[in-house]
């Protein structure tokens, strides 16, 4: 039940402060997600969603750093 998955914001449907919702695509499956915990989220952002709520915006720069780190580990002998 703790599963949280990354999805891409396709459309933001304005709502009151705590009811702000967005259409989010999870590899093609589109769900309506509450985005009131991530007020800065924009269309095109990836969010981590859990029980119908976006908990955080995925930081693409950090994701890139992780990938670089992984590549480095592989190269060090």
């Amino acid at each position: 039940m703790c599963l949280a998955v990354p999805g891409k914001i396709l459309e933001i449907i304005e709502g009151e402060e705590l009811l702000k919702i967005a259409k989010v695509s999870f590899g093609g499956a589109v769900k309506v997600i509450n985005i009131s915990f991530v007020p800065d989220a924009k269309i095109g952002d990836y969010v981590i969603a859990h029980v119908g709520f976006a908990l955080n915006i995925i930081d693409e720069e950090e994701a890139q750093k992780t990938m670089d780190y992984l590549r480095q580990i592989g190269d060090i002998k």
Partner: protein
Amino acid sequence: MKFLDEYRDSEKAKKLIEAIHRRVSKNWNIMEICGGQTHSILKYGIDELLPKEINLIHGPGCPVCVTPIEKIDKAIEIASNQNVIFCSYGDMLRVPGSHTDLLKIKAQGFDVRIVYSPVDAVNIAKKNPEKEIVFFAVGFETTAPPNALAIFMAHQQGLINFTELVSHVCVPPAIKAILDSINNRVQGLLAAGHVCTVMGFKEYEDIAKRYKIPVVVTGFEPLDILQGIYMCILQLENDINIVENQYSRAVKREGNVKAREIMNEVFEICDRKWRGIGEIKDSGFKIKVKYEEYDAEIKFGLEDYSIEESKECKSGLILQGLIKPVDCSVFGNKCTPEHPLGATMVSSEGACSAYYLYKEKKLQ
């Protein structure tokens, strides 16, 4: 899928595993706290690819598994009521209470519904003003803000037919309880990434310092877990005890302040019983007095009910990392996912169920 597939790349995984083999020189016990991570480890066979020096201990991080038996009994009591629509996340339905489970109550004709989000339960309450809607609010800190927001919404909309049966648990107090135990064998921790998206990891900095233990905030995909283990091993081998963040694409040190605001508006810290482990001080959330009209235990007069657990199930020892599921004498024979005797066999994130699914099958 972006941010998923690239963390399942088998070439990179192979290189990471080789790197881990190169770095390890001694025996180490590392605990992955979260059941979602346990599930990934067994599913991808990560435990079998690691050097024999590394022993992965499966922690108590499955809220379904640690929900105390009396809460399940209370849920059943409430759901067995003609006037109630009982809403729950799917995995709670088969968790055995002391006599029966919610799925059997549903089969008897009572209105038990699986919902995907607490907001669904609030919407059901709006549509059914003549019924009492009760939502089974279980989960760690990850799920607490959504469950709190549902109460806040109900309050704002003046709904009087919505309550929550709350069994929220918090991770750090349980970790401290395990590390404080005289039987403790844990030397390194992989902290649960999704809990940290909400809570951040300042609390773990205190734990790393006080217990002189490395902590790596770790994600859930195979490469995340392997990298978390690698970072943990580097610290252990070099006698370093700090908090590192492997899951930096999703977790910031301060967590999600906005989500915590609503959580703290509705919930407050309380002592909480953990199934198989017992009561742990300050390890749960309960509804604040200000919102007590949304507390199902008060509405249905169930605050004082308590019951002893059966001794047959060894899940408490498993959740503390003292034994593995296969060490339980009824594992795979009397106790299977079809006929679970304990909660760790019910949830797919429970260690017993993960072992049954991925290890028993392979042996057969």
